[in-house]
């Protein structure tokens, strides 16, 4: 079995095994750790062996349902590598941080399942396979919210699932449509990405098909106005799944725009790019401003994530080497930061039983380590220099200015927007007087430090030595942009 298949299926098989076998919770956790660390090891090996100059690598191609041209077809390039690494790094760290809190077997099984699903979706090069994994990711989320969530969890789980499945169905219709269209033109069905590239559709058709795909991605990301599931879902989802959703699944949506839409419908993508740039910029500001009046910590972070994801979308649709690299860098960097911040929000909740900003305060007095890390991760979301977010934002803003000067100015407000609420939140949560909820606040425990320190170091490393990381992405990105020159450049 190749390492890519192993990365995808090891977690899924382990999850099935744990599901079927009755085991002690400690054993479950140990197996979880073993599996995630194996995946991490495999991914690191992948990262080291990855040759930046070649495009698609470690390709595995097995016929699956050959009469319909569906194959098991996976491979990795510079951008999916980022997502794979994120997934591989975050999963064990989440477990380390939540190690003592979660004693339900289902929690760990679902997380493993999600890991496999995300890996599969990130690596698959066959549309059907991608669709399969895309849906597989959804199931554990549904169960996790339903089983371990807070508040009106059933309603919210249901709403989230129906909403996302609605999008996925549109995508499925589009996938089938292009497969049939391919058969009409070339005589056989195909779902392979590199073959579907050659498909010629009329502009109306491709716009519709593009819309079907885009709806699925837009809901998952979410792009304005498909965002209303977001804050409720984040609020009621348990920490592990919030991290998965914000750090991996939303990013996968943006990644899929690049991987599938830009490859298959490059002309349509260019045509609609201005609208999506507009929508992204609007979302950037809209979500940012919405977050300012939030009193619930997780909702604020949710909206802040949405704001950044809009920026990522802008970066992709700019279709310029800086925008592309900036967005893929922001995917990774924001995944790290938001995972860390949601993890810390979870710790906060576990210690104080509240997410309400108004009820918190004074944590820095008695828990300096917690305060330090909390402030650091919040600032890394804001994009302070020497953190990875800064590099990414600068690149996206550069791309935006390259595209159009006004787009540039609006994109540049991203350095203002996040901090408007972030700083006030830091003040209210960490500083000032101690409150009832925060009295006796326990500082970070050892295992929590073990989870947070690597994240912090990675964020710093990516901010101080970005070149090392970007060299892995750059050839992929420039190969994309050299195919199609950036469309417009007016002053």
């Amino acid at each position, binding site marked *: 079995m190749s390492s890519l298949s192993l990365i995808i299926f090891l977690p899924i098989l382990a999850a099935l095994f744990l599901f079927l076998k009755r085991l002690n919770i400690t054993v479950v956790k140990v197996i979880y750790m073993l599996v995630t660390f194996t995946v991490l090891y495999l991914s690191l090996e992948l990262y080291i062996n990855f040759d930046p100059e070649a495009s698609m690598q470690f390709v595995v191609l097995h016929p699956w349902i050959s009469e319909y041209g569906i194959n098991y077809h996976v491979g990795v390039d510079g951008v999916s590598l980022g997502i794979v690494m994120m997934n591989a790094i975050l999963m064990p760290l989440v477990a380390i941080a939540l190690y003592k809190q979660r004693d339900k077997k289902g929690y760990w099984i679902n997380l493993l399942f999600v890991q496999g699903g995300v890996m599969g979706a990130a690596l698959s090069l066959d549309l059907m396979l991608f669709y399969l994994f895309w849906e597989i990711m959804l199931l554990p989320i549904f169960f996790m919210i339903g089983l371990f969530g807070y508040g009106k969890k059933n309603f919210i789980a249901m709403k989230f699932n129906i909403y996302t499945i609605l999008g996925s169905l549109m995508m499925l219709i589009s996938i089938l449509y292009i497969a049939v269209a391919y058969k009409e033109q070339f005589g056989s069905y195909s779902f392979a990405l590199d073959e579907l590239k050659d498909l010629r559709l009329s502009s109306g058709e491709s716009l519709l098909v593009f819309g079907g795909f885009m709806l699925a991605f837009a809901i998952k990301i979410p792009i304005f106005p498909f965002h209303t599931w977001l804050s409720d879902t984040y609020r009621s989802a348990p920490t592990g799944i919030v991290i998965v959703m914000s750090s991996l699944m939303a990013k996968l949506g943006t990644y899929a725009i690049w991987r599938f839409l830009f490859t298959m419908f490059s002309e349509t993508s260019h045509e609609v790019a201005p609208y999506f740039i507009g929508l992204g910029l609007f979302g950037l500001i809209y979500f940012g401003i919405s977050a*300012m009046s939030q009193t619930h910590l997780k909702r604020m972070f949710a909206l802040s994530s949405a704001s950044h994801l809009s920026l990522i979308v802008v970066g992709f649709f700019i279709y310029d080497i800086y925008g592309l690299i900036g967005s893929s860098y922001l995917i990774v960097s924001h995944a790290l930061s938001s995972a860390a911040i949601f993890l810390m929000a979870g710790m906060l909740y576990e210690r104080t039983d509240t997410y309400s900003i108004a009820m918190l305060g004074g944590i820095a007095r008695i828990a300096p380590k917690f305060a330090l890390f909390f402030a650091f991760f919040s600032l890394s979301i804001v994009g302070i220099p020497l953190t990875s977010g800064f590099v990414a934002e600068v*690149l996206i803003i*550069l791309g935006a200015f390259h595209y159009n000067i006004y787009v540039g100015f609006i994109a540049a407000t991203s350095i*203002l927007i996040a901090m408007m609420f972030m*700083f006030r939140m830091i*003040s209210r949560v960490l500083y000032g007087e101690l409150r009832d909820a925060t009295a006796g606040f326990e500082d970070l425990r050892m295992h929590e430090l073990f989870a947070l320190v690597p994240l912090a170091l990675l964020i710093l490393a990516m901010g101080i030595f970005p070149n090392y990381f970007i060299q892995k992405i750059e050839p992929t990105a420039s190969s994309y942009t050299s195919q199609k020159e950036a469309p417009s450049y007016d002053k």
Partner: protein
Amino acid sequence: MSDSTLLSTLLLSPLISAALIFFINMLFLNPRQSLFTFLALTGSGVSAVLALIVSYQSYFHAQVFTSHLFTWLSIGEFTIELALKADALGSFMLLFVAPVSFLIHLYASGYMDKDKSYGRFFTYFNLFIFFMFLLVLADNPIIMFIGWEGVGLVSYALIGFYFEDIQNTYAGNKAFIVNRVGDFGFLSALMLLFIEAGSAGFSFDSIFLSLAQIDPSMLSLIAFLLFVGAMGKSAQIPLFVWLPDAMAGPTPVSALIHAATMVTAGVYMVARFAPLYTMTPDISLFIAYVGAFSALFAAIVATRQYDIKKILAYSTMSQLGFMFMALGVGAYSTALFHMFTHAFFKGLLFMAAGYIIVAFHHKQDIRELQGIRKSLPLLFVMMFTASLSISAIPPLSAFFSKDAIMGALYASGHVELFLMALVASLLTAYYMFRMVFVLFYSQKTQSTKKSSKSMLYPMVVLTVLSVFAGLLNLPELFGGNLNISNWLNLLDKELLLPHAKELLLISVNTLLILGVILYTYKRYAYTQAIHKESQENLVAKKFYVDEIYTLLITQPLHYLSIFFEQKISHGIIDRLINLSALYYARAGILFSYLENGNVRFYALYMLIGVVSGFVYLYWALRGVL
């Protein structure tokens, strides 16, 4: 030690000491304070010594130090090297930034004595020096921007240093947010600059070489946006609101960051981009006007302040206004020279203020601090000297620098700027001596026993410097040869006055200032005039600028946020989605009426289906039949 390692050591030694202090502070329970002091002073001391070496070499041998650390980022044409370069301007900055930092470190070790967050303080402090050096030494604007944001970040952390009072941290937030508004302009300008002129590399030199190809209107836009950045950092109208609030931090912070070094970064940046600004005279003039209004505004507000540190804060803003005036009319080295002297006397004034504050149990209101001359005689001397200096009394340092600015303004032909500067300068004398006379010339007496050697020594050094620093750039009039200006060799405009005219200007100016001081003495020394001032007029309320900003920006944003979240997201979009789900369920109920269990209805549906099929087929096959 090679040039390159020397420069890298200069940059990195504060970072290393900051990191060491940080880890010791985090990992050990009760580290000894003296260890922190040692580390902090070593870090800043090493860089101070090296900075002096660099400046010496640069001044006497015109040597340019460079150091290439690593490639920060390289994508296509966008290549950012993390390279350091100490040319004349950089070395000049080092010349006062590093020693003043070291002195203030020394002072802070006394000021912060026995503070429970001693280690945290010096972590930030050393980190600040690191970022400041990065800002000064960066060879390309992106790295400069990193330093620029970095100092802002540390400034944020230090303003909110006493985070037990949440208001302090709000002041820090305000400082950082306002600064970032400026940074927004700065970053936008850099991006435009790269797109327009970055193809040949993005170091300062290569940018300046390709400036000529840029469209003039675009160049003006870039220049303006860069200046927006400077406005934020150097507290000019309209982005000055953070500076008075920033006085919430410990006094050494105010001395180092909000007087001597960081706030002058805007001036440095404009001077650094001098080749750009010489090509955009409109924007330069705009800078001059902004500087003039800021100087005047701050001077007016300072006349009605009572908090000793706020007076000094407005004074800083006012002096920065002077520097921008000089920059605006093209007298770059004059502006930088004023910045140089300003660092000494303003640093000294803040240190003195801090000394008073520590000595009198953290009282900061000058009305409560009256009559402290007896108990602090040395301090009185130093503060009096510094006040004379800032008021530009010859032959103290600021006399030379400020007078050069006035001369340049006059020579540039913009009389209105000159008059504004003159008024601001007179007001400077007024508010400074108002403070001095209220503090030291009073019937009341207060006494204290506290004193700290480590606080006093740096002040003595700075007193000496603020007296004599002016001699370094002695104009020809007094037999000098403008050493610093020649050294810096910036693109100064020729703004020379005939000696007779200059002499006349100086004497009139000095006489006027002396007159103001005399008036102030009459008014405030040994009187209760300070208590009779109205608290309600426009000046005392600082022209309601904070309130206007709250009304125009903060509150609308808040309401907009609530509007977006509750009205649009929840009220419209989410409701539509939920309603569509609800109506879907309703539609299900509607259809369930059809399924009523009554077989003849089923037969009816079947019939309808069959008939429709028949009709359709009949219609479809009408041609065949």
